[in-house]
């Protein structure tokens, strides 16, 4: 949605008719929403920079997506079409929970179709289908600080960011290669945004990292517990940290295919089939998998 359209909708919104009695539209009070929207604007203006904000208590627990939820609730409008996924799946516990809540307090339509959604909130995945410039992806973030791995103190990591002092992060990667012959960071792979800030892309698999680069979509990251919001605006460079002789690599699924839809180009979930430990693989993006099955077996 364009900013202009959104502002029009905001102006039309009537706060005296709310979907749930006793609570404002979108659960949060106007002051909170305003603060979050301003933080989002600042985050968009400084790609990859973590904007501190006054994270509110939500009726779901900290660590369960309260940061993403606050962003979603501050943006959502009654005619939005919302998709919520947890580990790629629309039916997973966290997604079901959040979806139910947002539908209750904002009266939105729910979809599982990536293309049909105007707003997608996600935990740990980016949908397989390329998203458009009219859509927003809200990512739930447990650890907003990519440098936490090398420095526990927040005061110190903020200084390191301010001075672009990233030597310890590079050293960490280098030592990893010396110790294991490979960079062992599996998910939450650190990236450089817009050539400036090193950023934690949330615990998405490495598979999803390239999708952040020069995308058409606005990515918003919310860390409720740690009280930070950051963003990757559309058409921004996002580069995973790598060395010339040790390139970034995504997860390898060669030779494997989804047991439901046959896809060989998606991130796969490994499922233990029985007690003897046999494995099967399924698309992690359940909405995409359903769509593919429907296409060849309507």
């Amino acid at each position, binding site marked *: 949605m364009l900013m202009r359209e959104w502002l029009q909708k905001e102006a039309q919104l009537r706060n005296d008719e709310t979907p749930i009695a006793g609570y404002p539209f979108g659960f949060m009070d106007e002051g909170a929403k305003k603060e979050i929207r301003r933080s989002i604007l600042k985050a968009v203006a400084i790609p990859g920079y973590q904007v501190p904000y006054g994270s509110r208590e939500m*009726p*779901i*627990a900290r660590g369960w997506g309260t940061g993403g939820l606050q962003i979603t609730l501050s943006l959502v409008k009654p005619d939005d079409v919302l998709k919520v996924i947890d*580990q790629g*799946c629309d039916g997973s*516990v966290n997604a*079901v*929970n959040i979806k*139910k*809540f947002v539908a209750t307090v904002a009266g939105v339509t729910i979809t599982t179709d990536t293309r049909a959604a105007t707003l997608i909130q996600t935990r740990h995945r980016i949908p397989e289908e390329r998203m458009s410039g009219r859509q927003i992806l809200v990512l739930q973030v447990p*650890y907003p*600080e990519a440098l*936490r*791995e090398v420095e*526990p103190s927040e005061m110190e990591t903020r200084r390191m960011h301010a001075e672009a002092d990233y030597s310890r992060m590079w050293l960490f990667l280098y030592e990893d290669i010396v*110790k*294991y012959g490979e960079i*062992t960071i599996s998910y939450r792979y650190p990236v450089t945004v817009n050539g400036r800030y090193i950023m934690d892309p949330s615990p998405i698999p490495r598979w999803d990292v390239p999708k952040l680069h020069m995308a058409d979509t606005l990515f918003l990251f919310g860390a409720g517990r740690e009280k930070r919001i950051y963003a990757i605006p559309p058409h921004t460079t996002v580069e995973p940290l790598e060395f010339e002789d040790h390139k970034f690599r995504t997860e390898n699924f060669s030779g494997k295919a989804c047991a439901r839809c046959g896809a060989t180009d998606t991130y796969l*979930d*490994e*499922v*233990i*089939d*029985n*007690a003897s*430990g046999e494995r099967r693989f*399924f698309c992690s993006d359940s909405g995409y998998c359903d769509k593919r099955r429907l296409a060849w077996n309507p």
Partner: protein
Amino acid sequence: MGYVAVKGGNEAIERACLLFAHERTKGSSAPLGVDQIKEQLYLAADRVMGEGSLYAPDLAALAIKQSAGDTFEAAFMLRAFRATQQRLGYSLPSSTEKMRVVRRISSAFKDIPGGQILGATSDYTLRLLDFDLLKDDAARRRAFREQIFSSLPADAEIPETFPKVIRILRREGLLEETLSAAHPEERAFDITRQPLTFPVSRSAKLQALARGETGGMLALAYSSMRGYGDIHPTLGELRIGYLPLTVPHPATGEPYVAGEVKVTEAEVLARMQGSDGMPRFSLGYGICFGQNEIKAISMAILDRCTRTEKPNCPAEDPEFVLYHIDGIEAMGFCNHWKLPHYVDFLSDLDRLRKAQEMARAGKQQERRRC
């Protein structure tokens, strides 16, 4: 008045005890039944049993009533009662595969053999105050019961046992061997009979963690998962259920089942170690009485953290963790600061005054020199 206030201390103390008992009874509400606490505040009772290290739901409920809901005090009373009981023997090691499972989830795999059994949990509820509960009576409860049971299938098959997720990983060589296989202990350490000494044996460590205070353990485990540590846990499996308690018969020595205890068990997988050249997942283990998932998970994380070879932060240091998580010890010591310290304080004052005198004298000398 001078020191007159100190006289009559005995009576004042007795009155304070009575007043505390009176506070809880003075209202107009009906007396709180121990059965009500056991049934309706069962998570509080579970927590108190775990921290008090005595599996006794009725006594835990009684302790909660008597302590007016203070879980530290309640666990303390239970622990004190436990100390008066004769040690009859030790139960036999029991595999949690035999557990009668009421909840069992894995966050490592989407689906697991036996399935994800969500069970009774507040995890997926919205934390909105339910004002309907202000009017809770027998009729409402009956209606609620009828409503939830009417839609259930008549018979659903429940497997006898559930295979353990970590066993499958271990069989494939993805997980380190059990620590007990690598470092067998002839007999389990008994922390109620021997003080902890460091380096601590694993059985002692697990015992200390199993009766640690939930909040304290959570704080330390949280410090590690948030940044002051290097362990990024994945919950391999969390299971809650009833574990048969098998003891050797006192006369014949034959094993027999004496009853069952409700426990929460957590197994967390942490990043590869690679010390022997072969990278594997390592395991952190947590178990505690009753349903207390925060404690079991925190315990598993702390178990794994404290095995870090070179501790870098508090949660990785076994001494730091094990000496500070016992709620009974910590609360006792914290409260002891309310005891009179007049003598010590006077001695402190003496030193402070002397130091001030020296400082003043020093300043005067300086001034003279200028």
